């Protein structure tokens, strides 16, 4: 009886630990070789044949096609520079400059990777659409209500993810955090 109970206990622990770790690895992004710059994280290796088993599992589970490294690289932000979860009811400013790339796009998704409905049907900005300041830097305001300038609507959703994709860029597997990759700052300005 004790043996049976003991075995059962060990198996329950194994299932909880094993499946729990898998769940967290796939939802938090546990692939190796993450490139973290400020609020932004990219996994350049995920877009190559060297994608590790964690990256492969994440690709299979979400059903997305990763951006191939020869095409570009995708950075995601789920929180601002201070570590606060991005909240669609708040006003968040994305300011600064980006690393050199022929084009970039900034897109807002819900946590499932779907576009978020909004009144003006704007889901993204491309580097060509943005209104810039004299020095070439820009500010994009991610907010539920219209703001002057570059307004990316949140549709009022509680949580969202920003994807900043650079196309035809030198940013890749060998890139280290530093001056050659100046990523824009992400700051929550005001919350209701």
């Amino acid at each position, binding site marked *: 009886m004790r043996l049976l109970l003991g075995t059962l206990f*060990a198996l329950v622990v194994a299932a909880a630990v094993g499946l729990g*770790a898998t769940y967290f690895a796939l939802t938090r992004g546990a692939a190796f070789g993450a490139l973290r710059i400020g609020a932004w994280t990219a996994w350049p290796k995920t877009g190559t044949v060297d*994608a590790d088993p964690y990256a492969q599992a994440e*690709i299979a589970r979400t*059903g997305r096609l990763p951006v191939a490294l*020869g095409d570009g690289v995708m950075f995601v932000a789920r929180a601002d520079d201070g570590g606060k979860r991005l909240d669609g009811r708040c006003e968040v400013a994305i300011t600064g400059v980006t690393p050199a790339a022929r084009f970039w*796009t900034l897109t807002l998704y819900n946590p499932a990777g*779907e576009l978020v409905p909004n009144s003006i049907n704007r889901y993204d900005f*491309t580097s*060509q659409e943005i209104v810039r300041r004299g020095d070439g830097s820009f500010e994009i305001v991610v907010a539920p209500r219209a703001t002057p300038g570059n307004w990316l609507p949140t549709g009022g959703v509680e949580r969202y993810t920003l994807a900043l994709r650079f196309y035809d860029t030198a940013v890749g597997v060998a890139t280290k955090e530093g001056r050659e990759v100046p990523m824009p700052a992400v700051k929550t300005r005001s919350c209701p």
Partner: protein
Amino acid sequence: MIRWLLLLLGGALLGGIVHLATIIILPRTATQDAYSRLTPIAPINSVTELPEPTPEKAVMPLMDPAFASAICRYDLSQGPMKLTVPISLAYTSVSFYTDRDIAYYAINDRSAGRRAIELDLMTADQHSEMPEDEDITAADRLIVESPTLTGLIAIHALAPNPGLMPMAQRAVNGARCQRTDVAKDSD
């Protein structure tokens, strides 16, 4: 007490094995991965334009709405493939994926350096069987080796602003992807 601690430790170790096993098995058993999602809508060895992603409907998650996209789901078991993609004004790229959605090659309009991205896709075996003086090599065409017999080619054209989307869609629509022997017959 020690007995239970040992059981806990044993369980945790076994849990580590369960974790690694599930991570490795997952891509083999996934039914909602990109290749499986595209199989019903993309006929084999032809270009299928993907509908623009909207909040209500998207073929795959995390699609970039600034791009017009098309997919060629290929099968090399009958022979090599030939791919031609006209270049749009802004940015055009072609990415190659295995049937497990792993990107193994990508090329964009700048590296292609011509009016169209033209290349031949084949397996390593088909490449080595190709005679040296084949007119394909003579024509200086780019040859891409696929690590798998089946896979996906994703064709993307950027619309720098929404008004240019029809232009990007035209470029993507003009893409051709067919078996090399079929392409020769129709020439």
